[in-house]
């Protein structure tokens, strides 16, 4: 419970205002362009044009089939490891304050991180050559 105010200073909600401006600008640009191209381009729709393109041969079945579970696994692992990374941020901000004691604690955390990592490696969750 030590978030320190060493770094998190001088930012008010107003500091984010330019970002909103930029968002408006970006959205405006994108929207306008989309709108413009929609009217500028020719429109000669035919049945064949609207077909899904599968290298010129006839389409087979629905594209939205279940894909390899590996991708799913990667997504899940990302979620897990990413939130573990979240924990490094507060530590990185405060680590000078926490000193060696905090470092040892973080070492333990990293050790658990690595244990999980090793486990999924050994389990073959990231093996793609099967």
């Amino acid at each position, binding site marked *: 419970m030590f978030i320190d105010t060493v770094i998190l200073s001088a930012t008010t909600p107003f500091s984010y205002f330019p970002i909103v401006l930029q968002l408006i600008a970006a959205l405006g640009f994108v929207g306008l362009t989309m709108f413009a191209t929609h009217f500028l381009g020719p429109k000669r729709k035919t049945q064949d044009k609207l077909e899904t393109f599968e290298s010129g041969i006839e389409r087979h079945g629905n594209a939205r089939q279940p894909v390899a579970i590996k991708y799913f696994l990667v997504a899940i692992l990302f979620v897990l490891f990413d939130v573990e990374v979240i924990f490094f941020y507060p530590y990185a901000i405060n680590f000078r304050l926490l000193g060696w004691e905090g470092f040892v604690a973080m070492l333990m955390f990293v050790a*658990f991180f690595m244990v999980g990592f090793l*486990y999924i490696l*050994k389990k073959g969750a990231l093996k793609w050559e099967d």
Partner: protein
Amino acid sequence: MNALISTALSGVLMMFAGLFVKNKQSIKFVAIVALLICFAANLAELCTLQGGSRTLYGMITVTNFSVLFNAVAFGATLLYFMLSGSAFEKVGEHVSDYFALVFFILSGISLASSFSSLLMLFLAIEIISIPQYILAGSDKKSPKSSEASLKYFLMGSFSTGILLMGITLIYGATGSFLISELGIGDGAISPLALCGVILIAFALSFKVSAAPFHFWTPDVYDGSPSVFTSFMATVVKAGSFIAFIRLFHGAFTGTISKDWQLLLALVTAATLIIGNFTAVFQQSVKRMLAYSSIAQAGFMLLSVIAFSDFAVKGIILYAAAYSIATIGIFAVLIKMKDYTFDGFNGLAKKEPLVAAVTTICLLSLAGIPLTAGFFAKYYVLTAAVQEGNLFWLVIIAVICAAISVYYYFRVIMAMYFKSGEPGVEEMNGRFKFLLVVTAAIVILLGVFPGLLLQFA
């Protein structure tokens, strides 16, 4: 704290055991040894505590009570491993992972028995819950199992959300997560805190499957692989109760206690009535046990409502009695081919010893004297009677206990008084010996509850 650390490490150990040990028999052996070590570590803590307590950054406070409860949970799990450990292999390929998950649940329980901050409460509840979702769905090929798992998961995470909202509201009212600093019951009660307490009560009722939040329980317990239902319905449920009682007796005392006491009394009454009455109509023993677990939760809730030494002792004894007896029954149930009541017909003729042990366990669940279940019920009822204004609830509880006899005895009747050819797997001598040990523990605790309570 030893318990927490050792179980977490054991969980990791089991994860890796699965990678390096290929023989399933030895995995079970490793798990039992690891659990024994956890048990020993926990007992060592009991000795060093000497009635005091140990605090870690205000987050965890280990007291005699927590260590004792851990011991009960570990003991019951040990029994469970030995009785039903072999059944893990039938569920799926990843035997060691199941053991690892059980260990993680145990570490959650150790945390639940010793938290002193709402943050740790939340973590404990989640560490207990999440592995359960996996265990419930561990039979990947069975639609029933996966649906049970989904249902459990959705309901469980929903209640987690409610729990968190409750905690947050309490934080908003008090500015702290530490139980020692909450002080909700001192003086006037802020509406924010009251809402928070009610939400937490609801969420925890969800976790312990108290009515009207029980509706997931029968489906989930029925759909999950029996071997895990056995664990989920016993040790885990007791663990959630420990969190419940610790929180409500530790944090929400004082003026606020009257408010939630009434609320929980109504919940308890509903739980008792619904659990018992519905159990009567079940045709499958497994489902009956699911409803019975709801009914038993009603009894355990009595000890949450009542503030006293009896309540605290009662919940430990109840946890032990209920867990051991149910684990014993499930160990037999897993060996059965037909889970209906009729499936038990004539078991006493075929396997007299097994039937006798099952009978003793059932008697314990029904709360018949000479079994541990009696003293468990005795303690919680005493606590409720002592509370004074809950006499109506006690009467309901007693009537429900009498009703419970009906469905427990249906099994006994099927085993002893009906004839049939029960489909039952081969049971080896070791298994039978362990069953006898189970029955012996039930009776021993039923005659000398002091064996356990002297530490409390």
